[in-house]
């Protein structure tokens, strides 16, 4: 069995490890090929913190029930109906069991974090965060006898008639540059770190995107699979994108570059003009649209502007706000036209109607007579120092993927299921997420389909 495994898992995140553990528990020999070095193992899982699972009753860490039906309705709402109902309902049903299964694999839960977006009832948080979760999964996989290789970049997949035969490697693993396996689980993520690929859909604007995860999410496995006849699913421009601090590094800035302050101020573009209702809905339901909104603005930059009265209303930020004693001074520091910014703020302040501010509900603080309006939490920006965060689109992950069925088995372009190829995680997220996002769903997709893919891959290999 020197270079022939029952199950080959390509990828090293939540989906890949759940698949590897589940296949190994199913009696298969398993090799995991992680393209990144050990420190950066796990792709976006490194940066996650919770998972959305259905449950019929409160638990030690969840404050109340979250039924399958409610989960389904939330999914329907955020995707605007762009989902595969059969697959999505299957995932939601399976998610109930994941709450316990993942604990059996060594992962520990904790109640929702301080200062997070009211997720205490729906989302289970990983004690110590996503990397702690990954560490636990890797320890379990290794204890069970799963082989893991890092820096193991796959350069080609040998696939004949929808049947996986072997993977070719950039550098030898165990003396071999070609690994054969009876089943393949592709759990290698999306292509958000592949700027050239993003440019195919976004044009030059993609140069101004910041990538929230590691530079290793280049989508090379996804591309190979699609090129070799696996059916494509999902809109290539759809992704999870939030507005993050423009001062963040190009890659891997993770959670700490985000901003939760939009609802407390206004957002303007490089011409100092507002462009969207900052108070449309409560932040947990709207944070994931702001990446796309900023991406549509000139030079893909925007500025959240607020005053000193609201600083303590949101979580402290990694990068301090840029401050000015006057609007003009702030504009100067932001390199915005001071006259235009003063005009925007003056008009906004004049449009603010009296109301009772409460950021936890859809309050009655609104503007009147300006476009776009701010429909909740509108308060005058008038107490210096004036403060601003520059923001750019931060791409978390992409939705373009491989079509799968309920067994996590890939479907070929002609609609036939592949004999031995399975997919899990971000690489097939587009089956469930046609657009939009609700916190914690990426991990649900990863764990549920990872577990299924591993089980089915092992079953195929043992037959």
């Amino acid at each position, binding site marked *: 069995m020197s270079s022939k495994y029952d199950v080959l898992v390509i990828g090293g995140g939540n989906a890949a490890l759940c698949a590897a553990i589940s296949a190994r528990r199913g009696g298969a020999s398993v090799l995991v090929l992680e393209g990144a070095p050990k*420190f950066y193992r796990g792709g976006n899982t*490194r*940066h996650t*913190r919770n998972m959305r699972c259905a449950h019929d009753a409160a638990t030690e860490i969840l404050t109340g029930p979250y039924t399958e039906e409610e989960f389904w309705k939330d999914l329907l709402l955020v995707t605007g109906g762009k989902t595969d109902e059969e697959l999505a309902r299957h995932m939601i049903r399976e998610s109930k069991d994941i709450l316990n299964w993942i604990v059996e694999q060594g992962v*520990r839960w*904790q*109640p929702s*974090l*301080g*200062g*997070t977006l009211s997720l205490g009832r729906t989302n289970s*948080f*990983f*004690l*110590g*965060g*996503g*990397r*702690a979760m990954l*560490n636990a999964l890797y*320890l379990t996989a290794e204890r069970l006898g799963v082989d893991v290789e890092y820096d193991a970049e796959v350069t080609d997949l040998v696939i004949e008639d929808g049947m996986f035969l072997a993977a070719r490697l950039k550098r030898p693993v165990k003396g071999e540059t070609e690994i054969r396996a009876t089943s393949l689980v592709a759990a290698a993520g999306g292509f958000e770190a592949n700027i050239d690929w993003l440019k195919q859909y976004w044009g030059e604007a993609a140069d101004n995107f910041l990538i929230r995860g590691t530079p290793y999410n280049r989508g090379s496995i996804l591309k190979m699979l699609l090129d070799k006849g696996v059916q494509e699913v999902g809109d290539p421009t759809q992704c999870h994108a939030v507005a993050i601090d423009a001062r963040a*590094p190009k890659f*891997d800035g*993770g*959670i*700490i570059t985000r901003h939760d302050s939009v609802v407390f101020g206004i957002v303007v573009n490089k011409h100092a003009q507002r462009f969207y209702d900052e108070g449309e809905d409560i932040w947990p339901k709207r944070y994931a649209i702001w990446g796309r909104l900023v991406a549509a603005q000139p030079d893909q930059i925007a500025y959240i502007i607020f005053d000193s009265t609201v600083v*303590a209303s949101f*979580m*402290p*930020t*990694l990068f301090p706000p840029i401050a000015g004693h006057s609007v003009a001074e702030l504009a100067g520091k932001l390199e915005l036209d001071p006259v235009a910014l003063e005009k925007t703020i003056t008009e906004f302040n004049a449009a603010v109607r009296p109301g009772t501010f409460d950021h936890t509900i859809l309050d009655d603080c609104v503007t009147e007579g300006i476009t776009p309006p701010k429909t909740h939490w509108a308060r005058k920006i008038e107490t210096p120092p004036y403060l601003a965060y520059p923001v750019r689109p931060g791409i978390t992950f992409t939705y373009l993927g491989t079509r799968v069925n309920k067994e996590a088995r890939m479907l070929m372009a002609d609609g036939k299921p592949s004999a031995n190829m399975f997919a899990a995680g971000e690489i097939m997220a587009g089956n469930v997420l046609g657009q939009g996002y609700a916190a914690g769903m990426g991990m649900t997709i990863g764990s549920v389909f990872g577990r299924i893919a591993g089980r089915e891959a092992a079953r195929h290999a043992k037959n």
Partner: protein
Amino acid sequence: MHGTRILDETDRLMTVCNSCRYCEGLCAVFPAMEMRRAFSDGDLNYLANLCHSCGACYVDCQFSPPHEFNVNVPKTLAVARAESYAAYAWPQALSGAFARNGLVISIAAALSMAAFVLGFAALNDRSVLFGVHTGPGAFYKLMPHNAMAALFSAAFLYAILALVMSVRAFWRDIGPAIGGRADGGSIFQAVRDAGELRYLHGGGVGCYNEDDRPTDRRKLYHHLTFYGFLLCFAATSVATLYHYLLGREAPYPWWDLPVVLGTLGGIGLIVGPIGLFTARMRRDPALLDESRYGMDVGFIAMLFLTGLTGMLLLVLRETAAMGPLLALHLGAVFALFITMPYGKFVHGIYRFVALVRYAQERRSAT
């Protein structure tokens, strides 16, 4: 900006961590951090002393090195902690003792032990020093009880004075508790948290030492050391009561309370420090303040020496080795006492005080 580079770095890390918060379930440091948006010198020293160095937040952090954010909380807080000991030391003239602590402790121990050996030799006849003494009062043939009591009381009282003054400076610097309420409940909570090393647990799985597997046994070795120390202290206290209240003089038979307590404590003080030392040598350097090797090992060595000489004295007390061993043991204990305010011993005091403050803040937060 803070007074020192390490406090600047600690501030930078706490700002990173406060915008992440993934680690808040691991220990007390992160919940305490979350109660603040900005950090004074005292806040940072409080957080540094609250850290038990379990290493979990390093292993779990997506921004730890080689990530460009370079977040290494255990190491940074270890350095800040050690610098805080010097910053609060009383009298300040002796704060330099922390910089080359291993050397200071070694010299203190060597001089102290030599002084007792030479002192015994000078004050006593050779036949007394190397004689076989048994029965009540045997030890006091070498050094009169009152002299012994006076000398050690003075050393002990000095240590207490210096520690109290240092802790006072620390307590003042960390300022009033957020929501402040100092009461017995907080102290009781802190006694429990310190007594069971509640936060030396990696969030529940255990601590990290040489690799990313939480298999560290430091909690066990620390319990052996700490409770060994307390048992030895109890043995001495009981013996003192015997002496003054009951008029019964040491040495006592093996089954008597002071000896039983001392024996159990002595075993702890031998096994515990060996375990802690071994763990220290195997620990991933990424988690350690390596420049404080001397301070860490110096204190462990002093405890081990105290335990070892005490046990040897017990076993060999009816032989001619009793005199020299008594001198060595008294020398070790004396050196331990006088260096207490200027070495690793203070970690327990500062951490306890930080736990009291944390208990106060938690109680007023809920």
